[in-house]
């Protein structure tokens, strides 16, 4: 595969696609981390010890899940808006897993609301729906990621890779979810969350390792990008820092509850996700459809991108501001949810 051509970056047609590639990546990362933890809590819901624990777990994500999911709309929206050509190709190739993910998201989104409003006898059913929806959504997202990285290849190895990413991402979400519960809960449930985190951290580490080793194997271009000199030296911090963060999580979980450190496993997991995302972004750049279409080939007209860019510059800081406010309002341990 030839190295792709990068046009003159001093013209809007040059730098705008780059900016949008960055913004889209940022939205996707925000989605994976934010909805990741509430999907993770959903995946862990089945393991809760009692109905009261399930209520607390739901209360820990109740005020946030909707805004978290909006980042998916922004990420896919930016793909749709900034790279219309790539959007059709990607979503066309991922038609079935996308549909499956959507069904998962629908199930969990409504189950969240119905479980407390429907007749009490239906509550366990809605809880099961919430769990199943979260699991389906996580698995299909991982599957889509795997299919995407290999450029929708169709040899058996590509599908094995996609299945591995599906499991890896699901384990990662469970780790995020358990980390979130360590922050938001106390007592017996917190201890349970610690055990869940210990299970999930092993699986996540395995997943990250497997995918890191497999990615260069499925793509020669990516292998050349990572293992040529001096890239290999400059990139070495990514795996090293990830390994260190895994170490921190394992160590802290063993000594839990370490006073004042409840937030660290979650933060370290976010760090691992960010590093992995970084590595992935480096591997794929500058393609929006791996090995096929670059950001510049797929980009919308510069004048349209400019209209969004100006708006995003004004609005994104506001979004970050009121998101921070919402998290500040619901700071501290999760409390039972009461309507207005």
């Amino acid at each position, binding site marked *: 595969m030839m190295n792709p051509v990068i046009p003159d970056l001093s013209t809007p047609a040059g730098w705008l696609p780059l900016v949008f590639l960055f913004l889209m990546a940022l939205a996707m990362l925000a989605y994976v981390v934010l909805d990741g933890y509430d999907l993770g809590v959903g995946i862990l819901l089945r393991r809760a010890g009692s109905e009261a624990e399930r209520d607390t777990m739901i209360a820990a994500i109740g005020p946030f899940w909707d805004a978290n999911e909006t980042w998916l709309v922004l990420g896919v929206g930016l793909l749709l808006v900034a790279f219309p050509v790539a959007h059709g190709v990607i979503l066309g190739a991922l038609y079935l897993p996308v549909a499956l993910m959507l*069904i998962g998201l629908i199930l969990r989104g409504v189950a969240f609301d119905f479980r407390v409003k429907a007749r009490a006898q239906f509550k366990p059913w809605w809880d099961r729906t919430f769990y199943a929806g979260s699991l389906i959504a996580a698995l299909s997202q991982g599957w889509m990621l795997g299919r995407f990285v290999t450029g929708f290849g169709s040899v058996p190895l590509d599908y094995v890779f996609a299945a591995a990413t599906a499991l890896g991402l699901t384990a990662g979400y469970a780790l995020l979810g358990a980390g979130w519960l360590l922050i938001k809960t106390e007592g017996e449930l917190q201890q349970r969350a610690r055990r869940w985190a210990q299970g999930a951290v092993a699986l996540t580490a395995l997943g990250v390792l497997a995918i890191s080793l497999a990615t260069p194997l499925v793509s020669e271009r990516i292998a050349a990008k990572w293992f040529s000199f001096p890239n290999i030296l400059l990139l070495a911090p990514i795996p090293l820092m990830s390994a260190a963060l895994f170490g921190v999580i394992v160590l802290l979980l063993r000594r839990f509850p370490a006073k004042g450190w409840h937030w660290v496993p979650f933060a370290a997991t976010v760090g691992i996700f960010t590093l992995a995302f970084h590595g992935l972004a480096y591997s794929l750049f500058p393609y929006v459809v791996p090995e096929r279409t670059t950001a510049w080939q797929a980009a919308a007209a510069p004048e349209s991108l400019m209209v969004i860019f100006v708006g995003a510059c004004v*609005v994104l800081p506001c979004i970050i501001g009121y998101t921070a406010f919402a998290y500040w309002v619901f700071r501290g341990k999760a409390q039972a949810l009461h309507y207005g």
Partner: protein
Amino acid sequence: MNELDGFLLARIQFAANISFHILFPTISIALCWFLVFFKLRERATGAPHWRELYQFWVKIFAVTFALGVVSGITMSFQFGTNWPGFMEKVGNVAGPLLAYEVLTAFFMEATFLGIMLFGAQRVGERVHLLATLLVAVGTSLSAFWILVLNSWMHTPAGHEIRDGVVHAVDWFAIVFNPSMPYRVVHMLLASGLTGAFLIAGISAYRGLRGDGSQAAQTGLKTGVIVAAILIPLQILAGDLHGLNTLEHQPAKIAAMEGIWETQQGAPAVLFGLPDAKQQRNHYEIAIPKLASFYLTHDINGELKGIKAFGDKHPPVAPVFFAFRAMVGVGLLMLAASWLGCWLLWHRGRLPVWHLRGLVAMTFAGWVGVLAGWYTTEIGRQPWLVHGILTAADAASSVAPAHIALTLSLYLILYAVLMAAYISVVFFLARKAAYAGEAGIGEPDTTEPALIPRSA
């Protein structure tokens, strides 16, 4: 299966999803403003029943909002999965409009929703009111942007076509395209009516269940009065929208009216069975010259018939019947709300038969909105973007079997969710009715009861 089957399935899937989705924002847009109103009344009067009203309706709002969010996410994906040609051709216009919807509306409503629903004890009363207000503004703003895009697809403006792709030239002309103001007003009023009838219907249901609480009575009164005020405005807005459509999409008007031949002094067809093969109506009942009169304000004004548009005209029968269903529901709303007001005025309360009627009309707004939606959207066919892109050219090449599979999954899911939603709404009403009986909402004895206690 051939390609056409895939095209048809993709359309059915998108239509099913969009029909399901539109129901929930239609309620939540208006319902959130009702919630703001309840909060403001509570602050002004200090009366506890306003708080009870808020606390009852916020639960229904939450579940409605959740259904709107999840079905909306599905819709945003199906733009790409079902209509890749749409973004490739008109993405330069549609993209920024959708992006502004996400940036200015989605995040705001989703973020403040958490504070609005669960934050009452964590923030001050003012911040809570502000959060409720911002969710209301967000839902309305989101409707605005999506209707801007939808209107542009009906009446494109402010663009030029270069190398077969649409490019934006004048954003002001794009946003304020010719049909946008009519569509936005028509839709917001439809939302208001849907919300008003929902509140009236559920409050009436509580009353029939023996709930004599002030909250149920005030809810009933609010719903009936708001509906009575909005319905004439809606009829006026609909009429103006029709005139606008006549100017820009005459083929749609011809299908709505069921007029096949171009003629002067065209009749208003009250009923008929349009026959596409013979290009005429069977069993037609019509009032001579009336359509020309209300569309051109001249009894001998000329109206173009469907035949004048060659093969670029919509399927007549669905548009014709959907339009009559919408107008029918509108007239029923007019009768029910005005009669309700008259009874309230003269008797101080509503008789049991009227309460039953209101319960039957709880979701009347949905019927009207869907019928109106089908009128305007099927009436646009075969165009997806009028004069620029046909639906067939935007369709994807996804394997028909995949579309058929996911379509069946969606349909099963939607049927289950619809049943769950409606039963939960009525279940919450019954729960509130029992609470009302137990005296949580002390009935105010200084005013005559709007709902007969014995019912």
